[in-house]
């Protein structure tokens, strides 16, 4: 008898873990991809609502053999909320597309080149079908810009399968029962999709490659930042498993846990398959039966249901006892996977909407109910009963799905997309759309991409972050500064300051990264800190207008006042650089003052002198330097 796997003892690498990333990153354009609505503006205020149903098209019917149609028959109403300033008739599929946004094409080419992709000679817009309603047309317009690229990671290359330019989908507002509501503000905003090969061999690698790609994208300065501007789809498989896609991971640090638990889930589902085989359960001899239990159970979840609209049904599954409790994660079991699936497909909404006899917790099936179940269904200790309730049609769909899912467990890990749960694990999202869901967009002409256009973009490309980072380490920048600076928008001015103005690299990096961060934290408006303005700052320093320590004070003062006349500010702050002779003169005068006017005791003398000198020279000389000079003078 094989034992149920335990996530604490699970080693993904050992089980043939493979993971690939699809990064969806919005790019910085003024307008949307196929219409002239503004991009990048979000609002849940709406002026109108449109209702649609998504209907499976013919080929999908063939492919799913009714599952898609079943999903359609459960009849999800999709409501789109339209803000008339942000969405036009194009997004609502009531107008054909306008020509593709050329600014977006240029940005996508630039990123594809950075990823060392081969750029296509002609861009073909393709429709990729989605039946979930997230795009009113039922398909997303998308086009390949480049293929076959790579990025370095440790001592290997991570392959980039392709880079596509595509339109973003709606934002889901709610999904309850048969009604899903979407906001359309984000819809059709341009984004790029970068697809890596399944080259990451453990969860940490998946995270680190994600970081690496994110840094490359940021280098361009042409991507959107902020919440929702980037989403990762992560695909995972283990030996013997299936390629499962976890959709829409909002932050990279979530990836390691998600992919770990998904790998474990697949591993454990294979174990469940073996257990079913050990019990002699196969697709041919699986025995099930259905029973109407409306009004027969005492369970509190059922007590408040209006009888005329709802039905309670049970599915008896022979020889299945214990297997719904089969562990699939840190806190999930097979029943959770089944429940997730019927929630989506059967649209059940009266939580928890599914009970089963493997559940030992007291909130579920009570002793009396169990007796009723036994007498109605004839279940034995080897059997399992699943109870489902809701509108009759949905209950029927739900029981079908439970049965389909159990049959799948006998043979395969079903192809599906999964969504992240707050626990760090995943739940069923949708059945994976078929491979046949791509077809040419007959509304858009092919767009030739001339080699001149590509070469021009290549000529203005930023240097790759890892190349730049290595360069900065050569300049003896501390690791964290080299890492930050390599993707900073200030790196061009940094390079110029260091090479042309001969500024010390560490000083330039500290000012550009850390002190300017402080500047914004104090409420300063970074728009006034242009590259020219920074040039002036450093040349003032070079000309002796202030001492090294003055940068911090100048920048703080500028944040508060908005004044960028550095020389003037330096004088006001009294941080001008003072000549050595003058310092020495002030020190000896101060010693005299302390001795003769303040009658200082010798043991207090250094402290008092430092006080007097600091009052006069604060900001112009570093404290450390002053103390040394004073000690020296006193010792004489």
């Amino acid at each position, binding site marked *: 008898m094989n034992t149920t796997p335990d996530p604490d003892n699970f080693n993904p690498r050992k089980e043939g873990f493979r993971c690939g990333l699809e990064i969806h990153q919005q790019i910085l354009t003024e307008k949307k991809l196929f219409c002239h609505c503004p991009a990048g503006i979000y609002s849940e205020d709406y002026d109108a609502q449109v209702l649609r149903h998504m209907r499976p098209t013919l*080929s999908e019917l063939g492919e799913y053999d009714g599952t898609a149609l079943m999903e359609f028959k459960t009849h999800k109403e999709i*409501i789109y909320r339209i803000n008339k300033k942000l969405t036009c008739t194009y997004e609502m599929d*009531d107008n054909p597309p306008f020509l593709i946004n050329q600014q977006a094409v240029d940005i996508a080419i630039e990123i594809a080149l950075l990823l060392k992709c081969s750029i296509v000679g002609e861009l073909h817009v*393709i429709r990729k079908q989605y039946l979930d309603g997230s795009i009113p047309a039922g398909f997303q317009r*998308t086009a*390949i810009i480049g*293929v*076959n690229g790579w990025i370095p990671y440790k001592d290997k290359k991570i392959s980039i399968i392709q880079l596509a330019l595509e339109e973003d989908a709606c934002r889901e507002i709610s999904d309850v029962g048969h009604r899903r509501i979407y906001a359309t503000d984000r819809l059709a905003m341009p984004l790029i999709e970068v697809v890596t090969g399944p080259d990451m061999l453990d969860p940490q690698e998946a995270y680190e490659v994600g970081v690496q790609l994110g840094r490359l994208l940021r280098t361009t300065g042409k991507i959107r930042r902020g919440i929702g501007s980037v989403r990762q789809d992560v695909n995972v498989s283990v030996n013997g498993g299936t390629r499962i896609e976890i959709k829409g991971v909002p932050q990279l640090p979530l990836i390691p846990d998600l992919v770990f638990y998904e790998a474990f889930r697949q591993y454990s589902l294979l174990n469940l398959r073996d257990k079913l085989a050990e019990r002699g359960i196969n697709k041919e001899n699986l025995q099930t039966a259905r029973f109407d239990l409306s009004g027969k159970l005492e369970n509190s979840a059922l007590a408040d249901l209006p009888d005329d609209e709802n039905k309670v049904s049970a599915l008896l599954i022979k020889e299945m006892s214990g297997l719904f409790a089969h562990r699939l994660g840190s806190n999930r079991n097979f029943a959770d996977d089944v429940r997730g699936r019927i929630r989506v497909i059967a649209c059940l909404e009266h939580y928890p909407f599914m009970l089963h006899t493997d559940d030992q917790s007291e909130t579920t099936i009570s002793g009396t109910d169990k007796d009723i179940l036994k007498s109605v269904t004839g279940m034995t200790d080897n059997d399992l009963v699943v109870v489902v309730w809701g509108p009759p049609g949905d209950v029927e769909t739900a029981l079908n799905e439970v049965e389909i899912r159990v049959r799948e467990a006998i043979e395969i890990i079903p192809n599906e997309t999964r969504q992240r749960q707050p626990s760090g694990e995943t739940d069923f999202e949708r059945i994976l759309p078929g491979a046949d869901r791509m077809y040419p967009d007959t509304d858009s002409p092919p767009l030739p991409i001339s080699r001149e256009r*590509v070469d021009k973009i290549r000529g203005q490309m930023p240097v790759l972050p890892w190349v730049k980072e290595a360069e900065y380490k050569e300049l003896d920048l501390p690791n964290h500064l080299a890492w930050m600076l390599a993707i900073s928008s200030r790196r061009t001015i940094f390079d110029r300051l260091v090479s042309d103005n001969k500024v010390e690299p560490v000083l330039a990096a500290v000012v550009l990264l850390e002190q300017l961060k402080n500047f914004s934290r104090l409420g300063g408006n970074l728009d006034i800190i242009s590259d020219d303005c920074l040039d002036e700052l450093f040349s003032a320093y070079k000309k002796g207008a202030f001492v090294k320590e003055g940068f911090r004070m100048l920048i703080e003062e500028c944040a508060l006042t908005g004044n960028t006349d550095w020389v003037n500010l330096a004088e006001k702050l009294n941080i001008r650089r003072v000549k050595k002779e003058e310092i020495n003169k002030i020190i000896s005068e101060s010693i005299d003052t302390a001795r003769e006017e303040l009658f200082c005791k010798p043991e207090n003398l250094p402290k008092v002198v430092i006080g007097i000198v600091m009052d006069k020279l604060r900001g112009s000389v570093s404290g450390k330097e002053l103390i040394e000079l004073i000690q020296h003078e006193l010792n004489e």
Partner: protein
Amino acid sequence: MENNDNKGYRGAALSILNKFDVSVWNDVEIETTDGVFSGIVLPRSETADDRHIVLKLITGYNIGIEVDTIQGFTSYGSKEAHYKIPEKEFPYDPIKPNVVLLGTGGTIASRLDYRTGAVIPAFSPGELYGAVPELADVCNLKTIKLYGVFSENITPEHWAGTAKAIKREVENGAQGIVIGHGTDTMHYTAAALSFMIRQTPVPIVMVGSQRSSDRPSSDAALNLINATWTAGYSDIAEVLVCMFGPTSDEYALLHRGTRVRKMHSSYRSTFRTIGDTPVARLANGEIHMIKNDLRKRCPKTPLEIDTVFDDRIAIVYYYPNMKPDIIDSLVDNGYKGIVIAGTGLGHVNKPLYPSLKRAIKEGVHIYMTVETLWGYVQMYVYDTGRDIMELGVVPGANMLPEVAYVKLGWVLGHTHDREKVAEMMLTPYAGEITEREAVDGYLIMQGGLPEMEKFLKEVHV
């Protein structure tokens, strides 16, 4: 064989395919100065340039490779696929009405060749059942493909042919007729059938789609379901157009064939009744009548057709500074009838008068309609109108310009006698002229008004 002729390729692209002995549907690896691309060579659109080869990648995407960058091909055999619509037998149910669907060329239901994007129409009952299985819940369906033309290529011969086919099918026991038609000129055909079919015992319902059925958001299936329902069950024995009411998937509107017009180039809710209310609203097998003055279904009524037509007719859309040679050239070219869409209440400029006078003298029948679409021609209000009438131009009441055009051709098919023509033109045969305009006949709401903003937000538009 289709796969050996390198479909759509010409010039430089064709030469390079020939040079490397590669053809459409070959699974290839192309070496280029930009790297290597692998995929299947697809046919190319004939209107596209001759500088690129189209490849379908394994991921399902298509890309183009510029001919000049190509250094070599490696071929791995051929992968042509033929797509067929899955055909299932359309179930027969003796208690359901028998409906006949006549196809004229617009694709209401179709599926795609996923590689080329070519649309394969679904038309036989079996194909339609595969595409829209709900149809079997509505009726027993028979389909006949009359024509295969885009709707801009429809001619009066097609109108007459369709009318004859309808007669034949109704006499053979059809309890309702549905006509699949491209939407662009559907309202012309609807008007023509309204005149050519003098009386019908059963509903005759025109239908089309604004979004082809290869998309999940298509209006085709719902339109087809609503049209077959109307044909099978409704009590209206006239020519109707059945299309989306709002852009939302909520209900269909039935429009009278002589008062309907396509009003938006791309919206789903493009068909609107002009100068009146629609006939009815329909959803989920429930009909709510809005107008009750239409002829009722009556199995005993024989279907009568009258398909004569004189196509020497034209519409002239008036614009300021129109020159008289526009009218002259029509007359010189043997046109026998002109419908003018005039400004305002039905006016044209003075320089046209001599030409109009000459045209009428030479036997041309000229009828005035309004380019405002809504409202009546009223030529007594201004001197201009009276002057134009004096020339012999006849005011066409509130007939829509396109409807007046179709009607004039039909009337001239019967007679060229000036008085007879006028009598027929001004007699309403199928609701094309209404005696009065009700207050809800003219509704073009404007955005930005508080009451409309409220409506937009609360009702699914």
